[in-house]
């Protein structure tokens, strides 16, 4: 089966080509079948691969398709690597991907024929790129996918291209990602310089030779991490993700929650050999992670756009994953990627269902009491909220608990901060839930009349994801439960450098209890505050206003980066280009003309003067040649 791995990315690519080229001619039904079917088929193959990989004693296999770049000693083949990590990601991507494709067939049904096909083409292309990213057997392949998903993200955020603001959001996403990509790229160059190779196996083989704490290693690790920061929306490169909500909601679910944004985690996990030898960088990663988690969570507290809340929540959760990576708990990070994929996709799709029902309205202040009309959405959304909040028994609890436990072992302060973040998570999620689903409806009558539960193509994925959000956590039970940590065992051949912090059991139980209790308290506070929410229209003040305005980070970036860049560019254009270089060049021309104009005055028409000048010239030349 392994040798057929190329089919996994190839099928979505085929879907992309069919939908893209035939977008004018194919009916929507066929488009939907092609789009979803290709991903579903890829999922099936991924499952088969997964089962093969799961066999004990499986060693990573590299499938080389052809030579991509061959320059001297540098060989970069177009090759796929199948191992435990990539197989797991294949499952997440194609699995969640196919659900979202199915969901989309209904959600996007109001688009024109062409738009519908275009949407599926982009989505398929995204899946293709994402699969390249996780399947690549070297960093360049990863980079190909890395930029590819960025492109698809750009295309899908700007899907409704007539809206200039959506386009701007798309541009922002792409450009911020590129900043990260730059780091990634430089990291690759440094690798080429140091190891003469970018293939995972060769690089990891040569890394230890540099020795722990080597400055080169730091540089590589840091540069790669910059890439991860961009892709996975970490501080300071996170501001694009909330804006990316301009795209269709299934896109947010797939790209900006479940898959693409976790690419950074995948990359660091994939490079665990490297990172484990760069402890300072790990510390940086942990700090960035926890700061992101806190910052995003704090912003989420005051957002009123249903998708924005989820977006900040995603940023925050990604922060947790990086925290896990920073503490060396790679499995925990991957684990959280998985569970997060389930419940965040669920939440996004649920919000999509809500938005769909509300006729495009996204402001939660205009909603309320929706559980009456949308029972399935309500239940599944609630499950999602519970899962993300970390209620014991649901998937989020296990993954988050593992992260918190590791953080505690790593550093108490970070643990405390992470815990605060987790509490905020519970609070804003239930704020969202209660404002949206409880209380009474605050929208227009027209909207109220229109409210309905979504069709099966939407609810079915919701239900499946809700089930996964509940049971997904059982693959990684904490040690204290006594059961084996399946995920850890599964991934251990890949995550060779993992060094999780094991706490003693009492402490672990205590921490678990503490967080559970606090989370429940938070939920109740939220319930008390928002279950009968009324939109007063009052302006926020003080810290609330700061939070509502996202700490003014966008404005800050505008002031310290965008504006100076524009000023600099204008200075280059007007100051240097026009009045500098070009003026100089033209000045030479003018100088010649001016000189000509002066010199020609010598030619004054008087023959007496001419002879005089000749004599003077003779004298001068005589003096030069005779006496000098």
């Amino acid at each position, binding site marked *: 089966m392994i040798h057929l791995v190329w089919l996994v990315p190839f099928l979505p690519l085929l879907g992309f080509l069919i939908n893209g080229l035939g977008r004018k001619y194919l009916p929507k039904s066929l488009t939907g079948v092609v789009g979803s079917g290709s991903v579903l088929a890829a999922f099936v193959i991924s499952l088969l691969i997964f089962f093969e990989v799961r066999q004990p004693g499986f060693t990573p296999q590299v499938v080389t398709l052809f030579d991509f770049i061959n320059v001297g000693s540098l060989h970069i083949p177009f090759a796929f690597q199948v191992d435990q990590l990539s197989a797991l990601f294949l499952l997440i991507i194609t699995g969640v991907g196919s659900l979202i494709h199915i969901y989309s067939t209904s959600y996007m049904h109001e688009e024109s024929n062409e738009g519908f096909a275009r949407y599926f083409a982009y989505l398929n292309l995204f899946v293709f790129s994402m699969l390249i990213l996780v399947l690549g057997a070297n960093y360049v392949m990863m980079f190909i996918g890395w930029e590819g998903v960025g492109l698809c993200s750009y295309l899908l955020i700007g899907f409704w291209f007539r809206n200039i603001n959506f386009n701007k959001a798309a541009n922002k996403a792409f450009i911020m990602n590129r900043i990260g990509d730059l780091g990634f790229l430089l990291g690759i160059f440094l690798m080429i310089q140091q190891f003469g190779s970018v293939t995972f196996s060769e690089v990891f083989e040569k890394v230890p030779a540099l020795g722990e704490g080597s400055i080169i290693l730091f540089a590589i690790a840091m540069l790669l991490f910059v890439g991860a920061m961009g892709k996975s929306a970490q501080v300071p490169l996170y501001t694009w993700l909330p804006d990316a909500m301009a795209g269709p909601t299934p896109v947010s679910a797939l790209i900006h929650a479940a898959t693409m944004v976790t690419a950074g985690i995948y990359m660091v996990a994939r490079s665990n050999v490297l990172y484990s030898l760069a402890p300072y960088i790990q510390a940086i990663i942990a700090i960035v992670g926890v700061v992101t988690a806190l910052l995003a969570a704090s912003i989420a507290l005051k957002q009123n756009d249903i998708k924005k809340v989820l977006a900040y929540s995603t940023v925050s959760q990604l922060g947790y994953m990086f925290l896990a990576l920073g503490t060396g708990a790679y499995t925990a990070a991957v684990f959280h990627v998985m569970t997060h994929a389930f419940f965040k996709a669920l939440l996004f799709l649920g919000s999509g269902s809500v938005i769909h029902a509300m006729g495009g309205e996204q402001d939660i202040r205009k909603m309320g009491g929706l559980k009456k009309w949308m029972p399935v959405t309500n239940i599944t959304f609630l499950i999602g909220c519970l899962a993300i909040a970390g209620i014991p028994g649901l998937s989020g609890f296990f993954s988050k608990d593992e992260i918190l436990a590791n953080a505690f072992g790593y550093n108490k302060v970070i643990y405390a901060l992470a815990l605060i973040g987790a509490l905020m998570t519970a609070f804003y999620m239930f704020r969202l839930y209660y404002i949206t689903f409880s209380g009474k409806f605050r929208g227009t009558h027209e909207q109220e009349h229109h409210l309905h539960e979504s069709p099966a193509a939407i609810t079915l994925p919701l239900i499946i994801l809700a089930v996964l959000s509940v049971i997904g956590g059982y693959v990684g039970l904490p040690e204290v439960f006594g059961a084996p940590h399946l995920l850890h065992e599964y991934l251990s051949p890949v995550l060779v450098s993992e060094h999780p912090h094991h706490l003693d059991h009492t402490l672990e139980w205590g921490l678990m209890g503490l967080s559970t209790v606090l989370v429940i308290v938070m939920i109740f506070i939220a319930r008390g505050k928002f279950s009968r929410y009324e939109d007063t229209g009052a302006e926020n003040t003080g810290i609330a206003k700061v939070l509502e305005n996202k700490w003014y980070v966008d404005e800050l970036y505008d002031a310290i980066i965008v504006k100076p860049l524009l000023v600099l560019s204008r200075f280059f254009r007007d100051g240097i280009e026009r009045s500098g270089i070009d003026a100089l060049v033209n000045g030479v021309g003018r100088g010649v003309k001016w000189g000509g104009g002066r010199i020609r005055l010598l030619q004054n028409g008087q023959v*007496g003067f001419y002879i005089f000048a000749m004599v003077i010239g003779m004298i001068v030349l*005589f003096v030069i040649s005779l006496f000098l």
Partner: protein
Amino acid sequence: MGTMSTELMIFILLSAIAIASALGVILSKNPVNSVLNMIICFVAIAGHYIMLNAQFLFVVHLIVYTGAIMVLFLFVLMMMNLNADIEPQKRNWLKYAGAISGGALLLVLVGALREASLPAVQAGSATDIGLIANLGKTLFTSYVVPFELSSVLFLSAMVGAVVIGKK
């Protein structure tokens, strides 16, 4: 003071006349005076030719220059009825500048040629090289090509003078 000094005295006398009359040419206001000065200068130069045993040239010089060319000049001047008043004075500084640069040229040339070491002229030693017979022989043997060519020159000058001169 032997014969040498006689030679030298004649040389100095002739030179003085020549330079004085040359200065007269350039300094006198009336063009007719200039021409007359010029004639004196040419006669002095002719005297030098005799001193240098160039008898043929002496004759030609007197006939061609003093006789023909200068008379031609005089004729043209008379025909145009030019006198001193007609020539507007150059601005003074230009005049001085002209004089100074001419002087500078002189200085430069003298400075350059001052140290030339050359065989001396043995004044008084008569040679017959400048006689018409000898020169004529050379002229019609070695120098026949330039001689013929000068006819081309004259022809063109003649054609030219006609072309330009006729109304």
